[in-house]
């Protein structure tokens, strides 16, 4: 199936999900460009190195990792495509002479379809912060005791996206840099939730999962990228975990639905614990930052 066809189906799926008979849906994610045109441009200019489906190629890195690509904001990705900003060999990646201003934005929009985006989980949030955290030894111990998994060195870190709601800014999804003055505006009572992308393996699926939680640690959404094989069914099954979990959860999830659901619950739980422990690291930093507020 060609990228264009796949995109059309994705767009159709998104339309079905978001329109639902509503004339105007505010929670529709905002696209930085036209992904359909972006797919054509990607095939011309990028696919040779990054692969036709973005899974990496001879020289280009994979563009399918939500954990690695979401911390790169749209404007940064634009600069990367335009003049190779932030890359080792900027000249090799500068496509300014080949792509026009709006075409670069279309390419950015297409690259965003190759992985899950933060807007898929918190489309209505106002601001967010993103930072990578490493689970400390106490957290690793808890994951091992409760989830029965010993995390390897490379699995101990993940990016945590924390979202905040501000009156009148719904859907703006403005990035807040690690600047003390701007971070000070992000009060606990405005927190909308957390999002962590982690590797996930279960029967018939090997890829990445997005774990979205509210400020108490309750799962609000579990999802895998819709282009993956069996993603639709898996996402449907995973929706049954919504409302489960809390900070400090020790007991595995229990869901009805036979052996297959029990297996899924068994596979999801360690991933949830890992996400929770990464979020705990964010919380600790936030406590240090806001201890004087209370």
């Amino acid at each position: 199936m060609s990228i264009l066809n796949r995109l059309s189906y994705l767009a159709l799926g998104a339309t079905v999900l978001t329109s639902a008979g509503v004339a105007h849906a505010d929670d529709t994610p905002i696209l930085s460009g036209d992904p359909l045109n972006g797919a054509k441009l990607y095939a011309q200019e990028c696919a040779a190195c990054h692969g036709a489906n973005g899974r990496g190629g001879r020289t280009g890195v994979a563009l399918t990792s939500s954990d690695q690509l979401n911390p790169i904001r749209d404007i940064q990705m634009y600069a990367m495509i335009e003049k190779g900003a932030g890359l080792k060999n900027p000249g090799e990646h500068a496509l300014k002479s080949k792509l026009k201003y709006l075409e670069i934005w279309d390419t950015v929009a297409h690259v965003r379809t190759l992985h899950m985006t933060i807007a898929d989980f918190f489309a209505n949030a106002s601001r967010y912060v993103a930072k990578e955290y490493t689970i400390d030894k106490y957290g690793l111990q808890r994951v091992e005791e409760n989830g029965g998994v010993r995390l390897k060195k490379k699995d101990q870190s993940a990016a945590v996206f924390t979202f905040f709601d501000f009156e009148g800014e719904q859907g703006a999804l403005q990035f807040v840099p690690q600047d003390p003055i701007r971070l000070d505006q992000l009060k606990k009572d405005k927190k909308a939730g957390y999002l962590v992308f982690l590797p996930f393996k279960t029967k018939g699926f090997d890829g990445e999962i997005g774990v979205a939680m509210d400020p108490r640690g309750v799962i609000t959404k579990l999802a895998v990228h819709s282009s993956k094989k069996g993603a639709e069914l898996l996402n449907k099954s995973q929706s049954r975990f919504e409302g489960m979990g809390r900070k400090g959860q020790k007991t595995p999830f229990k869901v009805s639905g036979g052996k297959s659901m029990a297996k899924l619950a068994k596979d999801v739980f360690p991933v949830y614990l890992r996400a929770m422990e990464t979020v705990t690291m964010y919380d600790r930093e936030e406590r240090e930052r806001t201890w004087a507020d209370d």
Partner: protein
Amino acid sequence: MGERSPPVRIIKSLAHLAALPLCFGLLFGASNAAAQPFADGPDGKTETKPKPKRRAWTVKEGQFAYSLEFNPGIPDPNKVVEIHVFATKIPSTPHPRYGNRIPLKGATFTVEAFNPAGESVGRFRAHALPLQAGRYGLHITPTQEGIYELIIAGKSAEGEQLKARLKMPVKVWPLPKELEGSGADVGGGPRRRAPVVKKR
């Protein structure tokens, strides 16, 4: 006696020369005459104008006016259309430099597209075009034939609400009556008048 006298030959060749334009006239005149009855098409309908390369449409909502330029003017399904939005504010008294259309700098807005069935096909961010005050651009690839609806929604730099609705015909040509023209009659297009204060 078998040989003709030179004057006779001259007269004959002149007669042939005179007959040439007549032949041409008969040939082409006849073909023109044959084409004449079908000039408006076999049904007698008038020929449709070619699709415009670019099409402009202006909408006015409250104190704001949006002049949109579509390229191509009438897009085809699965072909990208470039939309430039010239967002302006209508002041209560004319601005000394911009007249009665002040370009909106630093506005953030999106354009949501609805297909002919009324389903949302995406909310596209309008990007400020470099070095063009008040001008924003975006691309949309419509996938269906028919009339799309576009909804502009966002905020100006001062936090004022921006909202407007308009139609985008896709492979619809000639246009229905309500989409003919530039739309400028609803609120007046951008003023072409010289600025009140001239630059020195």
